């Protein structure tokens, strides 16, 4: 190794900058799947599965369009999806994709115990080469999300090593994956979706700082950056802010404290937030624009519900807020008055006070908790911001207010957050909310004849004119802000129209990667 010539060459090369040559597209957006690229274990549910294609996909407006599927329909009893496949789809090894592969993928994923939830699937059957039937155990319209997220693998060659050597019918094929460092992909010549403008795309993993340093040295073309860094884009790059439903809000305990506890022995219920007037007044009082300015440096938008702007969102359910007078009127009317003059209202001798828990390591949630607390003091509510560990929050979230965040391209989240069956399960319905009419709406949405038909039911669950989980109804949450996801993008890169992003910064931006274009020579 210590040959004099090679030593001299090394010494020389250390002084010279790297050679300039045609540069591939380089992205530093995180999102490395530690477990590899196996859709059956859950790869590809965010953004773009890269190597595989799905039956359907969401377009920029989140409408479902066909990818592998040319036609899809739900049976009368809403139990069987019949999907017709395009006949020109091929895997990157040149073998054709058939209905057998689709049936195999769905059946395997439902049994794998991975990160693809297909517990609702009874059986997938191939009827002929291009027709497949997916039978469910009960009607559930949100199963359509699986059609849009589960990448199809080849039944013939799928096996143990698949996750690290994926073969699929997607836009790219894997050239090299150096785990923890870099993923290099090239266009799949057999892809059915058209031309891709890049001969090679690399994904750099590692820390956020590494990505920023790469951007500053001009070695990366698109980098995910935290909001605090967003405005400091290096020369040759511009800032891209993407709207999201990556939301943050206050989740209220809905029950009175009766001494009841969870299976783990932690308390349930809070006598202050169990009063609807308190929850509605908080929704009326919060100045969400001020919170966006305070906690997000202005990089975000006010949040009115769990899915602002998505097709299943009901804007009618919202209370715009920043109206302390109305909030105080609500509290007065409900009997919450400041009788002892300490600035905090009481009712029946009980002060309007509760903790607002946030994970101590999350500065955004901390700023939101502090800001909300400050605003609520104005109307006589003592909301005490309390930094905790997730461990403590897990124990206290059924009896205290917590700053939580959600946001998905899948309305089943609405179901999990508000249906009585999910009361106290994981982080879903932390407040133990249960309203039979809302439950019925949610069930009706899942049992709908089609995606279009389900939308009205999801919206009615939030607010149907009389009741709902939204602020105008039971006000189970006070949603505060939707984050913005920030990226530095090369001036020479056109990423086209973008979706509203879900919870999770980084990889979702690759959703339309195949249609990105260079704009400079």
């Amino acid at each position, binding site marked *: 190794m210590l040959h004099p010539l090679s030593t001299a060459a090394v010494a020389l090369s250390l002084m010279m900058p*790297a050679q300039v040559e045609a540069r591939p597209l380089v992205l530093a957006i995180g999102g490395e799947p530690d477990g590899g690229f196996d859709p059956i274990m859950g790869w590809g549910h965010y953004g773009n599965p890269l190597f595989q294609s799905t039956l359907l996909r969401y377009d920029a407006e989140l409408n479902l369009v066909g990818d592998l599927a040319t036609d899809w329909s739900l049976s009368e009893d809403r139990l069987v999806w019949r999907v017709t496949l395009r006949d020109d789809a091929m895997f990157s090894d040149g073998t054709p994709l058939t209905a057998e592969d689709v049936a195999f993928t769905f059946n395997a994923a439902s049994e794998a115990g991975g990160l693809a939830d297909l517990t609702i699937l009874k059986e997938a059957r191939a009827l002929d080469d291009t027709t497949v039937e997916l039978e469910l155990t009960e009607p559930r319209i949100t199963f359509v999300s699986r059609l849009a997220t589960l990448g199809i693998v080849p039944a013939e060659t799928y096996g143990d090593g698949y996750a690290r050597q994926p073969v699929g019918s997607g836009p790219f094929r894997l050239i090299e994956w150096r785990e*923890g460092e*870099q993923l290099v992909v090239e266009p799949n010549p057999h892809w059915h979706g058209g031309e891709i403008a890049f001969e090679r795309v690399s994904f*750099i993993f590692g820390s956020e700082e*590494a990505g920023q340093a790469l951007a500053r040295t001009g070695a990366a073309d698109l980098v995910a950056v935290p909001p605090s860094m967003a405005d400091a884009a290096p020369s040759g790059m511009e800032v891209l802010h993407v709207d999201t439903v990556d939301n943050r809000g206050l989740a209220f305990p809905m029950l009175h404290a009766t001494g009841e506890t969870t299976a783990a022995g932690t308390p349930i219920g809070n006598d202050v937030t169990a009063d609807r007037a308190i929850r509605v007044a908080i929704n009326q009082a919060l100045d969400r624009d001020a919170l966006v300015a305070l906690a997000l440096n202005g990089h975000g938008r006010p949040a009115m519900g769990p899915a602002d702007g998505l097709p299943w969102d009901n804007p009618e359910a919202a209370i715009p807020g920043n109206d302390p007078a109305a909030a105080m009127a609500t509290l007065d009317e409900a009997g919450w008055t400041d009788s002892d003059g300490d600035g905090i209202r009481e009712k029946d001798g009980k002060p309007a006070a509760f903790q607002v828990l946030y994970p101590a390591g999350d500065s955004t949630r901390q700023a939101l908790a502090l800001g909300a607390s400050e605003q609520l003091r104005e109307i006589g509510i003592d909301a005490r911001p309390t930094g905790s560990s997730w461990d403590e929050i897990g124990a206290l979230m059924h009896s205290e207010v917590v700053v939580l965040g959600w946001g998905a391209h*899948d309305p089943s989240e609405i179901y999990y957050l508000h249906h009585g069956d999910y009361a106290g399960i994981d982080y879903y319905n932390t407040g133990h909310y249960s309203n039979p009419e809302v439950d019925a709406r949610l069930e009706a949405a899942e049992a709908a004849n089609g995606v279009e038909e389900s939308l009205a039911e999801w919206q009615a669950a939030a607010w149907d004119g009389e009741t709902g989980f939204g602020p105008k109804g039971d006000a189970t949450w006070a949603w505060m802000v939707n984050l913005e996801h920030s990226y530095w993008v090369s001036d020479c890169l056109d990423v086209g129209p973008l979706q509203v992003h879900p919870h999770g910064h980084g990889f979702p931006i690759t959703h339309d990667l195949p249609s990105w274009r260079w704009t400079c020579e």
Partner: protein
Amino acid sequence: MRAWLPALLAGRLVRLAWLLPLAAVGLFVLISLAPIDPVQAYVGGRTSQIGPEQRDAIAAAWGLDRPAAERFASWLGQLVRGDLGQSITFNAPVMQVIAARLPASMALVGRAFALSFVLGTLLGLTAGATRGCWPDRVIRTVAVVLAASPGFWVAILLVAVFAVGLGWLPACCATPPGQLASEVTLADRWRHMVLPVATLSVVGVAPLVLHTRQSLIAFLDSPAARHLFAHGATPVRLAFGPGLRHAAGVALTLHLASAGELFGGSVLAEAVFAWPGLGQATVRAATGADAPLLMGIGLATLLFVFAGNLLADIAARLADPRLRRVS
């Protein structure tokens, strides 16, 4: 001549025989007590797409629904057959994960180890020889500052100066972005190694400088050195002549024994430089409560540190005849 060696090795093997099981049990207890739910960590941000039934299926698939004692027993059973189990985070055999990542870490740690040893000893000797004069004061100040600087901070500083500011060296990764391993030249590999190795060396160099300096000063104050002084030997000549042997033994012992710290430092350096080594895998395993992988890495690190200490003892005995007497 080497009569002490078999006794030393036998003693250490006995120690390893009880240390390994003890460490395994200790590690497992710690991991089981950690307030991280492995299923929740595995699901991560996908909570809204994974229903409770699927969570149960995940727990069952990874055997996480069984009691801790039972999981440990089955892990032990596998271990006896030479199988370290399956990593949850990486969805691959633990052996494969470690084998894939160990070489990158060793390349980094090994070079940093050699560099910091040479640098630390030389600077320490120089400082000791010029005691009280300006080279000594400069070296000591630098050493104290380095000893007080966290590794990741040094890394960010080096990147800011040499990669972003001056543009001399790459900011991250083991190879240039966008290139395949087969296209990367040897020169590129070396260029990418400079900053990570420098960062990691800095972590090990400061204690070495201060200890070498101190042991050299002790020698220079000894009657033997005073005698040589009286005969006209200069401090610099004493330092790099007879003093070197006095100081090097101590330095080598110290440096080999602190191999574990270097390994720990690589966890941070690897994260900053996107270096595809075992350090990154350790972080993922810990935050994911990935018991099989953590146990595998823990035991591998134990063997690594153990070997470092053993080598330190052997080296010390080779360098200093007084230690060879069997007690």
